[in-house]
């Protein structure tokens, strides 16, 4: 299903090394290794894995297990107290905070990176740019043929992530509803809901009728990214680290990690390390946008 994401990746390799180290050292405390459970957004899972791996060289005695499953899945786990850190590609919902408080858990939010959502089509598709309004009309089901947008006479096949994906919710609010809180439009019923980011890339790269969206970090050369404009009279911009950081690319968002108040020191250390220049370099390497210079906000 979520091919890479669902596989639980427990980093035990260095634990063994750490165990060997403490065995030879002898004087180390007996409970040398601490264990951090990290779960949630499939958008973040590769980044979280890379961080967890890199952190082993910084703090060999901390073991971090990273799982995907979707933002909702991670937050649900945080609410039920089964993980230390929940990854989310959307903000926690009011009812999730309520549910957490009912369990005696107070969620704490950390912005750990930023992400652009690329709108992608098949390379054969002559369309190269769309405005937010046009994308919204496509996903609401108001535009059903590429010829209505100046393309070939082909039916439009809409692809989306499943509803438990933070990317889905973000796309609904910021694109389908154009950021208007009062707007109650939803995705057209015939939108294909695919269980993984990879599934969307696979179908778009194969099918010239398809349009999809995915985090910038997932986009491969087999698909074509569209330049997107906020409104039709503004410039059309391709997603990139620069266009997200200078605020020109309209579909970008913050990525979060949620912990609870009173989290152990090891978790807090990990989170402050994540905001260090070294860790944020990994963000850039994986095609996401670092949070170092974005204190000014959107």
């Amino acid at each position, binding site marked *: *299903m979520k091919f890479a994401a669902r596989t639980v990746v427990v980093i035990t390799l260095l634990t063994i090394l750490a165990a060997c180290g403490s065995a030879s050292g002898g004087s180390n405390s007996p409970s040398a290794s601490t264990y951090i459970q990290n779960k949630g957004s499939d958008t973040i899972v590769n980044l979280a894995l890379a961080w967890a791996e890199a952190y082993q060289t910084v703090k060999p005695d901390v073991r971090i297990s990273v799982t995907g*499953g*979707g933002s*909702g*899945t991670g937050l*649900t786990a945080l*609410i*039920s107290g089964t993980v230390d850190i929940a990854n989310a590609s959307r903000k926690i919902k009011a*009812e*999730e905070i309520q*549910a957490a408080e009912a369990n005696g858990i107070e969620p704490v939010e950390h912005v750990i990176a930023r992400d652009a959502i690329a709108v992608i089509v098949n390379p054969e598709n002559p369309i190269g740019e769309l405005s937010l309004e046009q994308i919204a009309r496509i996903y609401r089901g108001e535009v059903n043929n590429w010829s209505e947008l100046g393309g070939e006479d*082909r*039916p439009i*096949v809409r692809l989306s992530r*499943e*509803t*438990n994906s933070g990317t889905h*919710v973000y796309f*609904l609010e910021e694109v389908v509803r154009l950021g208007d809180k009062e707007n*109650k439009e*939803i*995705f057209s*019923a*015939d*939108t*294909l*809901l*695919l*269980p993984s980011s990879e*599934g969307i890339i*696979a*179908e778009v790269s*194969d*099918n010239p*009728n*398809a349009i999809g969206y995915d985090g910038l970090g997932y986009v491969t050369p087999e698909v074509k990214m569209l330049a997107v404009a906020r409104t039709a009279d503004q410039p059309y911009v391709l997603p990139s680290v620069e266009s997200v950081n200078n605020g020109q690319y309209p579909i970008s968002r913050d990525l979060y990690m949620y912990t609870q108040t009173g989290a152990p020191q090891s978790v807090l250390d990990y989170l402050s390390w994540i905001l260090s220049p070294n860790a944020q370099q990994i963000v850039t390497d994986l095609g996401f946008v670092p949070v170092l210079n974005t204190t000014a906000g959107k």
Partner: protein
Amino acid sequence: METAKGERWITWIIKISGYSSILFVSLILFFLAREGFPALGEVPLKDLFGARWYPIEGYFGIWPLIFGSVLVTVGALLIGIPFGIGTAVYLSELAPAWIKNILKPIIEILAGLPSVVLGFLGIQLAAPFFRQFLNLPTGLTAFTGAVLLGFIAIPTIVSISEDALNTVPSTYRHGALALGANHWQTIWGVTVPAARSGLLTAVMLGVGRSIGETMAVMMVTGNAPVLPRSLNALFLPARTMTATIASEMGEVATGSMHYHVLFFIGIVLFGISLAVNLTASSLALRSRKRAERLLS
């Protein structure tokens, strides 16, 4: 004395393991009912059987999901029945022994193939092929799911049908041949009708196998909760009940409305499987009684 005591112990253990299945089924039923029936109180019936499924905004219409499952299952049977029964007839009536010895293990391998693997083949090969070959907007359709499910149901149908055909007494065949029927007439006019109830059971179990299948279907049907308008819907994306439960259960908050509705879908699914299995076993029972009457 010692052995008698030991035997009593063994009898007890076997008895308990026998009864435990009853216990487990009733516990599952109890849990399903406890988690699912509150949905009836929380969601108005009109909405629950509405035409739109979009749970994160409170649309809980389960018709598209029921129709999606039925569509994919019927499609799977249209493929699975002719292939499955055809294979069984060939194996039991026509195939020389050496071919039979090769074919049977291969079909058993097909039965053991994990459905994820089939789903993966479906995404990579079947969906692109059907899109181009049938000139569809997308290859991720109910039809693609039906073909995969057909493959999943075929081994079940073949092995049970073959058993049924093998239990037809050879005197029937000899009688038909003695009356001047040729080989094909014997198969079509005598052997297959005589094994009819067994074949029906095979088909019903095939239905049960397909309607409950999740993974392969979730990977290739596109999961769009569209209410079918015409037969053409077979060649459009569909969302099944199983795929909905599998992809959404991980995300819901325990005890929420969405959670209860997902369990309610589980009850509907359970009800359908139960009906199918009851039909299958009553058919088998009825024919057995008839056979006993004839023989007595």
